[in-house]
């Protein structure tokens, strides 16, 4: 970012930035003065930055380092200057880790208008469907109500190493109707695929030497045939 790119911002975005930086600017100021005030404010912040010394940021970021405008960037959360949506009925989701997935969706304006016109529109909800495998044979599902103006959520998924699908649904006259289906995702495993009793002793030792504890990776519970057989003792 440079001054030219500050100049690219709308006057509203510049005022929003000034507010974030604690500047109390008179309304309707010429943009050149707003930019100047921002640069000056930044200079003051920069002095603080230098005195604070240690900035705990990731090493990988160092190759991108270099300017005092980084702090302006950090405080700038102006909305992207592109259309937010594509006016289509769609739902997508992306697995983030073994527990969470990011879902985003949209409903075409005309379609939503039609639902609302019907009078018995009961709102949107997401249905998380746990599939038995990579196919669509649904096993378990649960619902997550969402507002009409929501368009993305992080959803907690109950089990690792499972396949899930997401349906975007509408409730009309008390009945649920799926209006879009997502791709099927799989949550990754968070524990070893094999329990230690299934591994050779050498493999277990090498797994430990590979930093298993540091990575906080655990083995699945050991499978003791005697415990399974124990049920027969009764």
């Amino acid at each position, binding site marked *: 970012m440079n001054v030219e790119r500050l100049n690219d911002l709308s006057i509203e975005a510049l005022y929003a930035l000034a507010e974030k930086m604690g500047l109390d600017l008179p309304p309707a100021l010429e943009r050149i003065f707003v930019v100047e005030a921002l640069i000056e404010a930044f200079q003051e912040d920069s002095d603080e930055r*230098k005195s604070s010394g240690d900035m705990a940021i990731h090493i990988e970021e160092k190759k*991108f380092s270099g300017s005092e405008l980084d702090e302006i960037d950090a405080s700038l959360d102006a909305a992207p200057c592109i259309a937010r949506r594509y006016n289509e009925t769609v739902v997508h989701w992306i697995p*983030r880790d073994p527990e969470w997935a990011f879902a985003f969706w949209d409903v075409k304006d005309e379609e939503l208008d039609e639902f609302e016109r019907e009078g018995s529109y009961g709102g949107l909800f997401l249905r998380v469907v746990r599939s038995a495998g990579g196919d669509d044979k649904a096993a378990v599902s649960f619902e997550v109500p969402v507002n009409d103006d929501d368009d993305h959520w992080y959803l907690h998924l109950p089990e690792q190493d499972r396949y899930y699908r997401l349906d975007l649904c509408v409730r009309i006259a008390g009945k649920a109707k799926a209006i879009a289906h997502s791709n099927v995702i799989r949550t990754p495993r968070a524990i070893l695929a094999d329990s230690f009793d299934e591994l050779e002793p050498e493999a277990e030792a*090498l797994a430990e030497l590979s930093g298993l504890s540091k990575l906080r990776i655990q083995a699945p519970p050991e499978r003791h045939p005697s415990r399974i057989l124990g049920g027969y003792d009764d």
Partner: protein
Amino acid sequence: METGSIALVLNAHLPFVRQPDYPRFLEERWLFESLSETYLPLLRLFAKLEAERVPWRLTMALSPTLASMLGDALLRDRYTAWLKDQLELADKELARTAGDPVFHPLAQAYRDLYQQNYDDFTVLHGGSILPAFDFYYKKGRLELMTSAATQAFLPIYRQYPEAVTSQIEASVVSFRSDFGRPPSGFWTPQLGWYPGLEELLSAYGLQYSVVATRGAMLGKPTPRHGSYAPVSCPNGFTNFIRDVAATEAVWSETEGYPADPAYRDFYRDIGFDLPLDYVGPYVEQGQIRTFTGFKYWAISGRSQEKLPYDPDLAAAKAVEHAENFLYTRARQARKAAAHMERPPLMVAPYDAELFGHWWHEGIQWLEALFRKAQGTSELRFVTLGEYHKQYPENFESVPEFASWGDGGYAGVWLEKSNDWLYRHTFKLIEYMTELAERFPNESGLRERVLNQAAREVLLSQAADWPFLLRSGKSGSFARKQIEDAVTNFNRIYEMLCANTVGTEWLTRLEKRNNVFPAINYRIFRRKR
């Protein structure tokens, strides 16, 4: 026979930051700084080791966007001009510090560095360093790998095989054009892996990659040798596994070698320390303070005042740390070897730009590693390709989805600061696939338009943008890169739908975003 092997893997990557519309552009400095402090010093190290017959082996992933910028004429000229500015500043620094027994020699060292860089870049390498890397590649000392075209974090795009294969194909084509042969190794950006990726990589003749320890250990079945030997997927694609201990010795920001008090402090820079009227001509637009590269202070202890940088002390520390690295790796190898039927391999992947740029003494550390290792028969440095050739058969296991990012999965590239962008990049992929299907046999102007559309789709997917949005550093720049790619693509899409093409605008865009000149938009066609 040695006790163990070490494979050092450097990932050299910068996003496409070429901005011909501006006379100077802040983010282009990323390239200039990396050239000055990492790539050129690395090449000098290679030459020195060769001249002194010190055995060395290194694997480097050169990202297609970086390779494109390293071969670009405009950036070559801009870098040369930037070096001249640095030399001018160095002369001013020599005058400013004249008579100072501590700082004047440091100013002289910077003068020497930039003069050396200028001479090497303009005379020795004739403005392009790619042939120099190729020289060592051909000699077998250095192995070059490719990476995803714009370093997209591939697991996020797994539902679009066309997008992932486009990232792979564009990179393979680019590598062949730069080095005249196909790559064997593929650096998965951020070590982002997911089961199934091996099929797409193998389809392009790629044979191996490096995965995060977490992903490998969670693979199915659990690897027989832990991280001490690669694993192969059922289709034969091999994954080398990052060694946690070897990487953390360097990578840890608080406990790694680069945090030693004797090393040069990265943050204290005259660009921030000296009056603006003095450093003005060498910072952004004369008024935005930036790093200049002139840094005179050591990291120093937490409780003490910053001490002046002492290059001799730091150089001795780099040697000491190299010895420590080899000692701890040898000890680690001995422990692992007791459980293995072949010498354990420790794969240490790092960002190349860590060496020299952030960790100023990093190149000296590398040099000391190779020099010290030649005196021992216990450890051997290998390239990934060399090892793969020696041990083509490996335990069969498919790594789990994981990465080397914080948290071990996709959390760095998918969180509240950056998740909005996937709505757009996904849509661009869908539109691009639709265009490639609708216009499979275009030529002339329409083909140019479609090829440019494909470039914009790839540029929008760079993992650097969500990374920067999350870190807050150059976040506006990152946002603008995504917005520009989306806007450019949408304009092309509309032009094609309306059957009108703005030739002048297209030509301007082709000149601006000139990465992947040989791209073929048909890579986005659905795989049948």
